[in-house]
């Protein structure tokens, strides 16, 4: 849809923007821009649609030609789409970021302690602070890891934690992605695109850099390498070019200057892992794996896996190769375990949680279950083992039939479901159909845990777009924004 020709020279930000009954990241309830958004506000008030559209088109085409795409399946051939990118940045004041950063650090430390504990003494279970059933019955709990010492005791080298804000602007942790969180390449590419498109704005704001993320990631990976007296060889293990996140795998490998390998490039011999090269076998020290535990080794895990390398687990057990993340981290991103993270923080760190959890009801607990079943029309019900919005019931928007179907599923397997109150996510002005509209956003910062915990300022802001970008529509209706954390 294009704007009538008469409006093409109008500024994109007009008086028509509606804040609505939500927390708007840019505007106060009275319609005034928040302090840290003033400069952007002034800029947008002078930017015409024509200019803006031109810049947007240039950014889209550059994404397409650079192959910054993801693959959508379901049709005969995979269709490639660019991940829709919105040019209006999300801005976080320094103090707010400091708070988030402290909260995230605390959370990842506690989760890592939890992982070390459940794979060793299991104190938290013995002390009955978390039910054994939940931990050992979690689909991603790996009993093979019990008693295994991982390098530096670190399991969660890379965590992507999803944060949301409610209608009053309070931050909540929605989930901790501890298997192989994706999206960080979009964070980095978004920044590049913004610098090309709005260099002038960067000059007027002091934006903290994020470009060092790949180097920090590489440092993290190298910090867990077994010591064999040589420079460690780090590789990125991908399921392959047909994986929807392949662009990211390739991007990160390139940025870190490491080799990207598939399972068939690896061979395990006498407890050591090698890559097959044109000159023979070359030993590998650290594997940044972007495939799930199940597929790592057909000898020890799923036998039909072609993505991993047979014998990899034994090499890992013998300490001859390090994996990031460690095997078994999935138990910590189980949505039922999530409910206990505040408890973990108190138990392991003796501190009160800095960041809030969303109140969570576990269907496995009888009282909670009754509450869930009585309030299905008000709650969001989630399957504990699935991510990406699959296996979810959004009560208020669901039909009667959908709710009844979920009732049956919950009763059949209560361990598999949790429920949370619906949160009206905060909104952010986003360019849609030639004007700015409020769209819901979340935030995924990436937390690295090597010699110490490192979080590059910001993260990936995801935005729920209702209509797509210039080039193609996204299938999922999700897009992203650059996230600016300001200097003090």
């Amino acid at each position, binding site marked *: 849809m294009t704007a009538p020709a008469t409006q093409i020279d109008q500024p994109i930000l007009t008086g028509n923007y509606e804040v609505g009954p939500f927390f708007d990241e840019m505007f106060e309830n009275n319609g005034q821009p928040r302090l840290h958004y003033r400069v952007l506000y002034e800029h947008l008030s002078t930017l015409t649609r024509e200019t803006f559209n031109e810049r947007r088109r240039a950014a889209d085409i550059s994404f397409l030609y650079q192959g910054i795409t993801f693959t959508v399946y379901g049709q005969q051939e995979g269709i490639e789409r660019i991940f829709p990118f919105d040019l209006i940045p999300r801005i976080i004041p320094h103090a707010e970021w400091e708070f988030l950063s402290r909260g995230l650090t605390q959370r990842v430390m506690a989760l890592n302690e939890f992982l070390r504990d459940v794979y060793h003494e*299991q104190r938290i*279970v*013995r002390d009955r602070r978390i039910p*054994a*059933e939940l931990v*050992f*019955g979690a689909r991603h709990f790996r*009993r*093979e*890891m*019990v*008693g*295994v010492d991982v390098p530096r005791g670190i399991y969660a080298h890379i965590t992507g934690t999803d944060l949301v804000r409610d209608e009053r602007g309070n931050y909540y942790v929605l989930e901790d992605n501890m298997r192989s969180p994706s999206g960080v390449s979009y964070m980095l590419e978004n920044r590049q695109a913004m610098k090309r498109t709005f260099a002038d704005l960067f000059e007027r704001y002091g934006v903290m850099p994020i470009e060092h993320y790949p180097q920090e990631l590489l440092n993290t990976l190298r910090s867990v390498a077994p010591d064999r007296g040589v420079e460690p060889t780090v590789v990125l293990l991908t399921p392959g070019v047909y994986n929807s996140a392949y662009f990211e795998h390739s991007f990160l490998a390139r940025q870190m200057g490491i080799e990207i390998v598939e399972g068939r490039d690896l*061979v*395990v*011999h*006498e*407890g050591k892992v090698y890559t097959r090269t044109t000159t023979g076998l070359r030993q590998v020290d650290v594997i940044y794996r972007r495939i799930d535990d199940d597929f790592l080794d*057909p*000898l020890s895990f799923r*036998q039909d896996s072609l993505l991993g390398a*047979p*014998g990899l687990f*034994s090499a890992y*057990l*013998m300490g001859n190769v390090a994996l990031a993340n460690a095997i078994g981290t999935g138990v910590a991103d189980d949505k039922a375990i999530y409910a206990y993270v505040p408890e973990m923080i108190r138990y392991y760190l003796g501190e009160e949680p800095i960041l809030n959890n969303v109140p969570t009801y576990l269907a496995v607990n009888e009282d909670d279950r009754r509450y869930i079943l009585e309030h299905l029309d008000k709650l969001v019900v989630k399957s504990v083992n699935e991510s990406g919005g699959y296996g979810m019931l959004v009560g208020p928007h669901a039909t009667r039939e959908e709710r009844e179907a979920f009732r049956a599923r919950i009763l059949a397997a209560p361990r598999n479901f949790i429920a949370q109150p619906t949160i009206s996510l905060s909104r952010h002005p986003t360019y849609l159909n030639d004007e700015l509209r409020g769209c819901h956003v979340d935030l995924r910062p990436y937390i690295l845990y090597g010699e110490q915990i490192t979080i590059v300022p910001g993260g990936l802001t995801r935005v729920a777009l209702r209509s797509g970008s210039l080039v193609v529509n996204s299938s999922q209706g999700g897009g992203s924004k650059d996230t600016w954390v300001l200097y003090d």
Partner: protein
Amino acid sequence: MRLFIEHLTTLSYDAPINEAHTEVRLKPADAGGQRCLSFKLLTEPVKAHVLAYIDHFGNDVRYFDWLQPHQRLSIAVTSEVLTAPLFDPGAGELTPLEEYDYCHPTAYAPADEAICRFAGPHILPDDPLGTARTLSEAVFRSIKYERGATDVKTTADDVIRLGRGVCQDFAHLLIACCRCQGIPARYVSGYLYDPKFFGDTAATHAWVDVFIAGHGWISLDPTHNCEQNERYVRVAVGRDYADVPPTRGVFKGNAKETLEVRVVIRAL
């Protein structure tokens, strides 16, 4: 009792395969009063470099690979073991994970209606030890020992339906019955020295440990309706067969595989 065990596994293929990785759980355990005096594993025709680790059940695992194309692999294991005159139940208690694992159904030992119906009449209220023993005897009486009626994939519910099976099936059925009564039970893989089994009839054996609070582990053999004695050699324990197969492996290639196992046990 001092026993000598020879366990020969031969894998042959009708076309060359490569990148074979093999895990072996065949070393007699140092547990329950038993001691392993010697253990040797040799591969033929090429001597593989064998690595060892202890799995999370405490079992000794030997692991080796053979990358070059081949059509035959044999694994010769010889061991000498001093068995326990009486199985030592161990003191202590279960770890939280053991408590969970040995009480929960598995693929081989599911908790379905048929199992509960089978176990129902044999329950002695407030007497888990008595219940376990009665169940063991019930399995012994209800299932007919018969080779060839079942295979390595047979599950406990199949066994009830068939009414026939071998020690692996007896063990899985008893485990399933105990667990549905809340009695922790685990699968034991090993050998039974019995002079009447020799030549083709000698094989590996399987039975069941149950955990009784206050007693520790009690080791029951539902195939022979007795408790473990000095003729039993323990090798590995787990939730069911899938945790303790004597050999496990993968390879690359498109070939038909033939597996041959020969076991010889002699008293010294």
